[in-house]
């Protein structure tokens, strides 16, 4: 059988969760009913960005009728973290950001918990706060973590104790100093991005129950039930088999529900009121103030090329503002480090990618994981350099973009991709050469292009596991530990199982909720890794089940397994043309001749996948054989116009093309491309704002605007290319995050094309654009 002959892989089948979601049947964590035993809770949050906690007095709060427990960090010295264990569950001696949990109140109603939280008296001694990552990285800056040297850390992360630098990833490739004299043109710039929020429609919600038996159950809106269990179990000293995490449907994640956010607070509060489930549901305001953010970034870039436009060298410093705790953020700086050049072939590179503590909310994973941040500067400076040597920016990219087999910045050989086709496709769709007329005399129109790359950023060996179980009627349950966040992971799992087993797609159910007590292991639903990694595990599990079936039938017919296959739920023999329905035989087996005994039995397939080929990188040079499993690449081109009287931008067209390896479900890829384009566009206008005291001043949908249905581009032209990789199912790799990575710089490039002004700092707010245009046309006239 040829591998290209697929029946359901490659088809745009309906989502497995579509009917549940349009009928209101899909269960999210807040929908689970707990009955009268349920208690409610509220966190007491720090009103200062940096302060010592001098005393906490809970007496008045405890006396409020209906209050059941108050917990603080006083008796809780354990920290938690994914790559660097630096984060307390409740602050004990010091607070490091506005909104940090200091205490938790448990009461019989939410209203009482809110009232009691106000009665907790905390005395602080305010410390100097630092918000700018460049400033915070300097010697003598106010230290956030004097104990940094004592924290447990992954062996590929390099904190610098005695400073605010939690990670310093270095690239030293070739000889950048000696290349500058050979450059015909050099572009230099500094680019800045503020922290932004994920803004899922469902706020973080957890319910924890600590039973008298010692069993703890945590229901959570989570992208990472297994990593969550691991981190909380380690921090609180709970055996993994005594901590059960149940994660139903997630109402939007975007990275914000990866790792642990506030869930450990719910567990600690539940431990104080044994036998009662305790609900901790963040308000929308808390979602803005008290959850993780996309880190801020200051990037300093110098790049040069020869007369023909060949890139010769790059020098980069990335200062990620990691916020108060960098347990996850350190790996964002690392990922930005080993991919620091963007998707370009550059022979000489010197880069330092730093994660720096600041008194901002915790910086953590967000869609793109460092890549939207670095591409913001990279993709603008490439346009600037192209302009300096008089080359079209698209031509410049076609000349310099990374190709399969190139030795990239980390020293690894580039995995199979076709970025040139992506660029050519977006140029064609957007009619790159053609100058469009503005739709009104007070408007200017422009086009911009940007390309990207991103590898899954994770430890070298994150695993996926899957189980495939047959039912009597030959329907199938697929069990996975990866999560459905809306991206369609369950649909992909069902398609891969159906294809491998030879059963109809409709007969496959993916088990939900994810439950660490029953579900097979999955590291986390992050890094756009599920189609690839979980897909491999499901394929292996289904292949295992298929083999069991074929062996039973082959023995029954006295034929060879190689002569049999399964199609539409029937085992068929190419040789004898016999048929055997799967129904019943997948549970009861098949009888021997004259019923003299039986063969087979209940079919359960198991499979796992773990990449085994990622190597370490040299800590001084960032060089190694294989930094990552693979890269996904893509291109976007944008056609926009700007209103000169208001500074308002309108994106008219976005062309967006990615190389996905293999489209398991083409329409689900298009939904990611469309949603990502709007998310990327929205992110160009977003900013979590703070006043001088470090307080978040826009924690609502009114003050922190995300794109509405009225703001979308007139047309999003999505497409994909299929250059298969060797380690993904049918060659597939992820694309869920990539689709927003370069949207903001593509907009900035188009804006430059329209008005001739470069905006190096996000957000691209209308007032900023208006003032810059005004200054440009009437210099000095304020």
């Amino acid at each position: 059988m040829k591998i290209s002959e697929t029946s359901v892989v490659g088809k745009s089948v309906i989502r497995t969760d579509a009917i549940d979601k349009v009928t209101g049947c899909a269960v999210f964590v807040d929908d689970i009913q707990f009955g009268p035993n349920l208690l409610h809770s509220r966190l007491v949050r720090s009103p200062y960005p940096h302060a010592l906690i001098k005393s906490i007095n809970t007496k008045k709060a405890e006396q409020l009728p209906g209050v059941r427990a108050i917990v603080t960090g006083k008796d809780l010295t354990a920290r938690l973290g994914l790559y660097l264990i630096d984060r307390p569950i409740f602050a004990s001696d010091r607070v490091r950001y506005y909104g940090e949990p200091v205490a938790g109140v448990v009461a019989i109603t939410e209203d009482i918990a809110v009232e009691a939280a106000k009665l907790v008296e905390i005395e602080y001694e305010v410390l100097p706060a630092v918000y700018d990552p460049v400033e915070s990285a300097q010697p003598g800056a106010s230290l956030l973590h004097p104990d940094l040297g004592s924290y447990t850390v992954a062996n590929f992360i390099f904190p610098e104790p005695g400073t605010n630098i939690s990670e310093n990833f270095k690239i030293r490739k070739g000889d950048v100093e000696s290349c500058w004299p050979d450059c015909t043109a050099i572009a230099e710039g500094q680019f800045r991005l503020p922290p932004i929020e994920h803004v899922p429609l469902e706020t973080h919600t957890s319910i924890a129950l600590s039973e008298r038996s010692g069993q703890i159950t945590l229901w959570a809106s989570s992208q990472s039930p297994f990593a969550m269990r691991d981190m909380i179990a380690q921090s609180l000293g709970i055996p993994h088999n005594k901590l059960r995490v149940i994660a139903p449907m997630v109402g939007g994640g975007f990275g914000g529900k990866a790792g642990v956010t506030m869930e450990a607070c719910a567990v600690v509060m539940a431990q104080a009121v044994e036998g009662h489930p305790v609900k901790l549901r963040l308000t929308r305001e808390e979602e803005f103030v008290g959850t993780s953010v996309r880190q801020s970034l200051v990037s300093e870039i110098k790049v040069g090329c020869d007369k023909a436009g060949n890139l010769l060298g790059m020098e980069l410093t990335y200062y990620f503002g990691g916020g108060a705790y960098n347990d996850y953020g350190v790996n964002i700086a690392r990922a930005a480090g080993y991919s620091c050049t963007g998707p370009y072939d550059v022979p000489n590179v010197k880069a330092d990618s730093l994660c720096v503590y600041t008194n901002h909310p915790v910086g953590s994973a967000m869609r793109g994981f460092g890549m939207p941040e670095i591409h913001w500067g990279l993709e603008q400076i490439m346009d600037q350099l192209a302009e300096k040597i008089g080359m079209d920016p698209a031509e410049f990219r076609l000349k310099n973009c990374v190709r399969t087999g190139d030795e990239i910045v980390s020293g690894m050989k580039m995995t199979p991709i076709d970025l040139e086709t992506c660029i050519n496709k977006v140029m064609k769709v957007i009619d790159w050469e053609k100058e469009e007329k503005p739709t009104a005399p007070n408007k200017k129109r422009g086009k911009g292009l940007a390309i990207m790359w991103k590898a899954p950023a994770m430890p070298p060996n994150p695993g996926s596991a899957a189980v495939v179980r047959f039912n009597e009627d030959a329907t199938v349950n697929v069990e996975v530990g990866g999560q459905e966040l809306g991206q369609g992971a369950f649909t992909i799992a069902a398609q891969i199982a159906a294809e491998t087993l030879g059963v109809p797609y409709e007969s496959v159910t993916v088990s939900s909720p994810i439950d660490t007590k029953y579900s097979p292991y999955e590291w986390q639903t992050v890094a756009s890794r599920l189609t690839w990694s979980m897909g491999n595990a499901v394929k292996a599990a289904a292949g295992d089940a298929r083999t069991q079936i074929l062996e039973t039938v082959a023995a029954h017919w006295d034929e060879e397994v190689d002569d049999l296959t399964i199609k539409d739920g029937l085992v068929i023999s190419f040789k004898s043309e016999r048929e055997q329905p799967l129904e019943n035989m997948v549970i009861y087996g098949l009888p021997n001749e004259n019923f003299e005994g039986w063969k087979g039995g209940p079919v359960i397939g198991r499979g796992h996948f773990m990449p085994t080929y990622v190597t370490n990188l040299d800590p001084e040079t960032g060089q190694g054989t294989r930094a990552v499993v693979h890269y996904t690449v893509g291109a976007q081109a944008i056609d926009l116009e700007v209103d000169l009287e208001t500074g308002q931008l309108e994106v008219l067209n976005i062309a967006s093309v990615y190389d996905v390896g293999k489209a398991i479900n083409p329409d689900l890829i298009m939904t990611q491309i469309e949603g990502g384009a709007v998310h990327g566009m929205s992110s160009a206008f977003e900013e979590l704002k703070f006043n001088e005291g470090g307080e978040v001043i826009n924690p609502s949908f009114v003050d922190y605007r995300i794109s509405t249905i009225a703001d979308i581009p007139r047309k999003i032209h999505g497409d994909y290319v299929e250059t298969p990789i060797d380690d993904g199912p049918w060659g597939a790799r992820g694309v869920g995050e990539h689709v927003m990575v370069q949207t903001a710089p593509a907009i900035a490039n188009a804006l430059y094309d329209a008005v001739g002004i470069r905006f190096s700092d996000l957000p691209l707010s209308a007032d900023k654009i208006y003032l810059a245009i005004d200054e440009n046309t009437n210099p000095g006239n304020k």
Partner: protein
Amino acid sequence: MRIHSISLIVNGTEELLQVPSNLTLLHALREKLGFTGTKNGCEAGECGACTVLVDGEPVNSCLVLAVELDGKEITTIEGLSENGQLSPLQQAFADLNAVQCGYCTPGMLMASTALLRRNPDPTELDIQEALVGNLCRCTGYQRIIDAVMKASRNGGAQ
């Protein structure tokens, strides 16, 4: 807090309930009656996830008190399909992948249902105006517009 005895006709069935003065329709539906399809997104009337129909009009259920609605007819997402038959809007949302995480979907469907009842043949602009208060972070909205258009061509809402 005073407790009031009220009746709500939810999806055609009369429900008798005791509500404190400050209980919103959102919490009455979710916690008193178990209609958890209606989602809580902001409790400030800014995201539309909790949209239901009150006497046929779209309302942010987080902004109205249950006690004010004594005797009113409420339609929630659970009331859109009948006898296992999806409404044309529900079918179109499913067919066109206008759903991702699904958290905004009930509110989107209720607001769209109200739109099609009032305007069975809306333009794209009509749809954008009707749904501007319903936020979605996943889809990029175009599929939602397409789904409402498809349902309208199929004969509009029930």
